């Protein structure tokens, strides 16, 4: 069975469409927080477009990093807790493929949500700028390119981060371990994004981060997927 078909079945099984409700709630909260952050950033910057965009997109990534930990609990951890994993592993489908399909669904849910919220919040910023001129120096075309770069880097960061709690879930199979690993991933993400403004350097850092976490998933996670007794 193809990976695409497996993802489709997982989508149906987990009623993934229902996550749109969560997207709407988070977007509303993040639009509000974006609005609030304009005033804070304006106090410290003469031209605040890039700072607001960086803060906004970082905050959105933070929310979706935490949100994706909840998704991991539902999509993956529940299979181990409810023991339906015993059923899954009696299908004529390689175990690693089954788990990777779940991982792909989790990535999809987190990334799609993040993108939708980023678009909504940026559209809100544009609206605020046009109608009230609240942003110091206004939004420029360069800010739009900066926003696109922030979104791309945050997407890369979220995908890289997700390997950590997924692998921890496969190994430990507990909610608390997923939460702790999510917090660690969040801290690593925040450390990088808060200290570096250069997009090329950020990209290199997050790419390296993603490669390390992917190796962690394939080596450690792979071992625990094949051996249920561990």
């Amino acid at each position, binding site marked *: 069975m193809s990976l695409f078909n497996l993802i489709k*079945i997982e989508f*149906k099984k987990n009623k993934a469409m229902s996550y749109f409700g969560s997207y709407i709630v988070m977007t509303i909260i993040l639009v509000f927080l974006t609005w609030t952050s304009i005033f804070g950033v304006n106090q410290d910057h003469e031209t605040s477009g890039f700072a607001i965009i960086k803060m906004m997109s970082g905050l959105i990534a933070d929310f979706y990093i935490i949100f994706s930990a909840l998704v991991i609990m539902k999509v993956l951890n529940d299979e181990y807790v*409810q023991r*339906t994993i*015993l059923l899954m*592993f*009696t299908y*004529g*489908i390689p175990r690693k493929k089954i788990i990777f399909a779940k991982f792909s669904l989790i990535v999809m849910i987190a990334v799609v949500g993040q993108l939708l919220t980023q678009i909504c919040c940026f559209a809100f910023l544009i609206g605020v700028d046009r109608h009230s001129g609240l942003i110091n120096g206004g939004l420029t075309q360069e800010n739009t390119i900066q926003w696109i770069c922030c979104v791309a880097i945050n997407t890369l960061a979220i995908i890289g981060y997700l390997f950590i709690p997924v692998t921890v879930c496969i190994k430990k199979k507990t909610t608390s371990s997923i939460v702790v690993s999510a917090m660690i991933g969040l801290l690593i993400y925040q450390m990088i994004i808060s200290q570096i403004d250069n997009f090329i350097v950020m990209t290199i850092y997050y790419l390296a981060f993603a490669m390390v976490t992917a190796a962690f998933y394939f080596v450690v996670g792979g071992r625990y997927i094949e*051996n249920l007794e561990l």
Partner: protein
Amino acid sequence: MKELVIQGKAVTKNYGSFRALDSLDISIPKGSIYGLIGLNGAGKSTLLKILLGLIKYDHGEIRIFDSDKLDIKKLNKIGSIIEYPYFYEHLTGEENLCIHADFLQFTDKNRINEIFDLVDLSSARHKRVREYSLGMRQRLAIGRAILQKPELLILDEPINALDPEGIKEMRELFKTINREYGTTILISSHILSEMEMMADYIGIISDKHMVKEMSMDELKEVTKKHLRIETDDNGKAKKVLENSGIRNVKIEEKNELKVYEEIDVTEAIRILLDNNLRIQEIYENNCSLEDYFLDTVTRG
């Protein structure tokens, strides 16, 4: 020599220093219903998980479908219930079966309707599984296991929570599946009376290894009502009894003399004593599978 679907030799499984299976042998003929019986902790569930490839064994050999490697594609030929009937609780009974069919790439949706009728759950198909009783879950699990008409069914205590009517229905269903589809069924159960009514072969597991494997015909022979006589010369005792008109006299394993017909015990004693035989023991045996099982696991 009957074709075997499952053949295991000296299968051993350890969890650290704890031995879960100890040189276990098993042979399951194709097209049969094989009852696996044993006390709690004997190793039944461990064996079933090994057969399904869920856990690995440490030593020995297992052949399934005439191969020593459980090819992943062969898993689709096997239906199973392991440990407990696990389902996706947030989904309805029908949704659970549809998801199962999707994973098996099984496209016959009419079969799902047929399954709900077979397991008598049509009225509950649109209810979420979290609202099901244990009996309903077991029925649904059986339905799920037989969805794709598998060649081999491995069932771990599938009827424990059913009422007597449900047990009878499932027994008839298993027999029908076995007869009409030729499905080999390996079923573990504590309900020994059901095994007696359903199984063609039984395997008794005790203390992590197989102590006895026999056909139901052989079991019926062994558990048939008989007189067991212990003398100082069982060979001579057999001849003496046969000469006096008692036909159904046999010397069986462990040199045990058994008489399988209704006789006057006093008369038998008199005949033996008249022929200078010393009688050490006379015992009338009238045992069921339960008695045989308990006797076997006690003796090990």
